[in-house]
């Protein structure tokens, strides 16, 4: 593909110096952006792996939790269990904020736990089966919050990788080659001028000798 030249006002040495400076800057920025993309991809892959692991863990926890709950329901009976669990309803507290990965703002969530807090149901009237079910559902909640963070992170990182790659491609395949082509063009122009100057001088010399 022929490289397009950048518009320069006049083919002078000053323009050449300016272009060379721009090329150095563009190359440096290209290196930084390349590193950024590789870091973003590293993070993306790591989060993708973690998302898969967390999803698998969540499914296992759900199946364990439902198993424990059905055993508890069988032991106490549905009506008694429902009566006990009415009082155990409470609001969740989630601490939310942002963290930054290579210029991408990613949400960070954390389930706030009250240490040593009671679950809300009577420990006298219930069995350890219900305790087990409550413990497992608590674990499920934690994993759900973690999964929400991971999935949103994946989306945001994916978008940013796309955007940065587009900039990197523009630099790699358009800006830097066109700068290089323009610099080359200016060099050729100067050489041409030198040759013209040399032949002019020769011509003048011949004319002077004739006189």
């Amino acid at each position, binding site marked *: 593909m022929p490289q397009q030249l950048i518009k320069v006002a006049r083919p002078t040495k000053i323009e050449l110096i300016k272009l060379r400076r721009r090329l150095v800057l563009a190359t*440096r920025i290209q290196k*930084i*952006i390349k590193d950024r993309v590789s870091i973003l991809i*590293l993070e993306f892959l790591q989060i993708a792996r973690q998302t898969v692991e967390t999803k698998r863990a969540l499914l296992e926890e759900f199946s364990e939790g439902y198993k424990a709950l059905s055993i508890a329901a069988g032991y106490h009976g549905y009506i008694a269990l429902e009566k006990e669990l009415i009082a155990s309803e409470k609001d969740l507290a989630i601490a939310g*904020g942002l963290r930054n990965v290579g210029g991408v703002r990613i949400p960070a969530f954390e389930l706030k736990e009250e240490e040593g807090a009671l679950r809300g149901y009577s420990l006298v009237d219930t069995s350890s089966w219900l305790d087990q079910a409550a413990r497992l559902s608590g674990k499920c909640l934690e994993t759900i919050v973690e999964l929400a963070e991971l999935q949103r992170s994946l989306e945001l990182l994916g978008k940013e990788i796309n955007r940065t790659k587009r*900039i990197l491609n523009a*630099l790699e395949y358009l800006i830097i080659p066109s700068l290089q082509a323009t610099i080359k*063009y200016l060099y050729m122009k100067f050489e041409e001028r030198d040759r013209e100057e040399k032949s002019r001088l020769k011509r003048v010399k011949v004319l002077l000798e004739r006189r």
Partner: protein
Amino acid sequence: MADELPYDRILRECLKSELRVINAHLPSKQKPLSDLLSEEYPHVLCRDGSTHLFKRKELKYLADLLDAEEQKELSLPILIGVVAGVGEIVILCPGVVEEKVISKILDMPLTRGQKGIVIYKPQLAIIRKLLRTTTQYLFPPKL
């Protein structure tokens, strides 16, 4: 000579903002681990005015690795410098506590260079997996 490409100017602006964006998240001031552990919502303020939240789980993990004196010396977030074009990662550490933490996480002795601890990408993945919020990337134009 061919006309200037219509998006050449836009791209130039993009590049400028790109450099601004990648380092805007750096903390205006790092905080010691001991202080963060006592905060209800452990966080630091960033240069762009946003807040960076630390996960309590990670802080507790770090606290388990260090004694009380070292907890006061460890400034968070730990800055990880990415050297352009080389593929080397430099962990900027003013003290020895960071070195101890990284060494324990990687389970290997580390040598400290002039700029900081030099590690490579596979090791970086291990560190970032464990310390997601307590480490931050830094893209220095020249390191």
